[in-house]
């Protein structure tokens, strides 16, 4: 095993993937707790599909670094989706589904008339650790660090707003501002994580660690810490197994997450018997 690890780490592309993956997994898990509690589990799915649509359009137009276009567009979508809330005519879960499938459809349609379903498109859909250029890596690292820092700086405010928005507002917090913050951070994590995890699977690294942690831990802080650890651990185990058995990286990471979830589920049942 040690030898495989050493051999694995000797590849530059694996080193890049390790760096970006660890940071993105951590950020996704931090935000995931707030998103799951606010019942926005599916927003990751919707945003990644929008990201896919933008990437295909950008690629068709011959843009050299499509990530720079994807970030602002996905961010705006995220704010719109989170701000819609449940007060408007179309409920937020339906609006996510609406935007999600539309963006995917546009992406697929554009792909059909331009390049066809080639490897690039497959990589967008299911992720590839080979897909990341040096520029992507730098962007991903910078974005992840910003997300993690903002999360720590606004931690207690995010807790207060997530737990009880009315109380937070009565205490003088601008609750809408923190909803926007979560939206923007989520969009950033989705866009930078999408290349590696793939459009179809990125949302799972947002939801799984939070749900798994909530099975066993009963304080916000513990759930956050546990989510971060589970997410990074799942990523590392996933990328190792994916290298060893030559399975798609994104899929392996999701399966590892699933296994940990089932483990926690069983432990929870045993404890509560």
């Amino acid at each position, binding site marked *: 095993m040690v030898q495989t690890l050493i051999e694995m780490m000797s590849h530059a592309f694996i080193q890049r993937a390790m760096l970006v993956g660890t940071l993105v997994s951590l950020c996704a898990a931090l935000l995931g707790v707030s998103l799951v*509690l606010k019942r926005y589990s599916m927003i990751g799915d919707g945003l990644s599909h929008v990201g896919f649509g933008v990437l295909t359009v950008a690629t068709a137009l011959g843009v050299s670094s499509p990530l720079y276009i994807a970030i602002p567009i996905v961010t705006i979508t995220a704010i719109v989706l989170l701000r819609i809330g449940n007060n408007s005519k179309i409920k937020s879960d339906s609006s996510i589904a609406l935007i999600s499938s539309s963006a995917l459809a546009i992406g697929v349609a554009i792909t059909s008339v331009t390049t066809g379903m080639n490897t690039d498109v497959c990589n967008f859909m299911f992720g590839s650790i080979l897909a990341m250029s040096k520029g992507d890596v730098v962007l991903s690292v910078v974005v992840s660090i910003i997300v993690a820092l903002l999360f*720590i*700086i606004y931690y*207690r*405010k995010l*807790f*207060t707003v997530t*737990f*009880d*928005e*009315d*109380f*937070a*507002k*009565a*205490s*003088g*917090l601008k609750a809408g501002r923190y909803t926007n913050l979560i939206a923007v951070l989520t969009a950033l994590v989705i866009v930078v994580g999408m290349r590696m995890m793939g459009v179809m699977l990125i949302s799972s690294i947002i939801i799984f660690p939070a749900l798994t*942690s*909530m099975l066993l*831990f*009963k*304080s*916000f*802080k*513990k*759930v956050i810490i546990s989510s971060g650890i589970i997410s990074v651990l799942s990523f590392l185990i996933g990328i190792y197994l994916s290298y060893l058995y030559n399975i798609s990286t994104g899929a392996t990471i999701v399966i590892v997450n699933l296994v940990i979830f089932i483990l926690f589920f069983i432990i929870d049942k045993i404890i509560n018997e």
Partner: protein
Amino acid sequence: MNLIQIKDVSFNYPTKKDTLKHVSFDVKKGTFTCIVGENGSGKSTLLKCILNLNKGYTGEIIKPERIGYLPQKNFIQSNFPASIEEVVLSGTIGNNIKSIFYKKEDKETAKKVMKELEIYDIRKTCFADLSGGQQQRVLIARALCATDEIIILDEPTNGLDPSISIQIYELLDALKNNDNITILMVSHDIERATTYADEVIELEDGEIKFIGTPSSFKQGGAK
């Protein structure tokens, strides 16, 4: 001394006109005031105007800067992972809004309040695992972390057993008597509200129908 002065306040929701019509009253320091009335009479709307949650009312509201608030309970999710300590501590957020972490004095305040309300020994327990009455106790503790002057409560005994409701009223009464905390609450429960309150305000269709002592309210109600 008047802690809160409501002067000729009117408010409309975009979809509902005349939710509040020319409401005026004062809340004296160290008193227990109950606002009663039917559903849709404007009780909660009035509280939200006082708390700045409803913007765009007309008239004037004079109030202290820091108010402890206990919202209607249904806003909080049943599976939310949060310890009692985390919930109570979050009540101090308005005291040092700019700071990144909780300050030492915030933690001291939270500790003092939790001890007073006898929830300090169970502070690591998950909020969601508590009974309804205990949850309200925690939320009252959170409100007390925001202020030592006045707490505003929106139907705190809704959905609680009668015996537990009495405990909540007893607790509020004790806070008023021992710590000189002003209590302003909205309630459905006219019988108990009139037992503990110093002043009763009855709203009907956004207007004040009655304002005065519980005994004169009961006489009026018997007519």
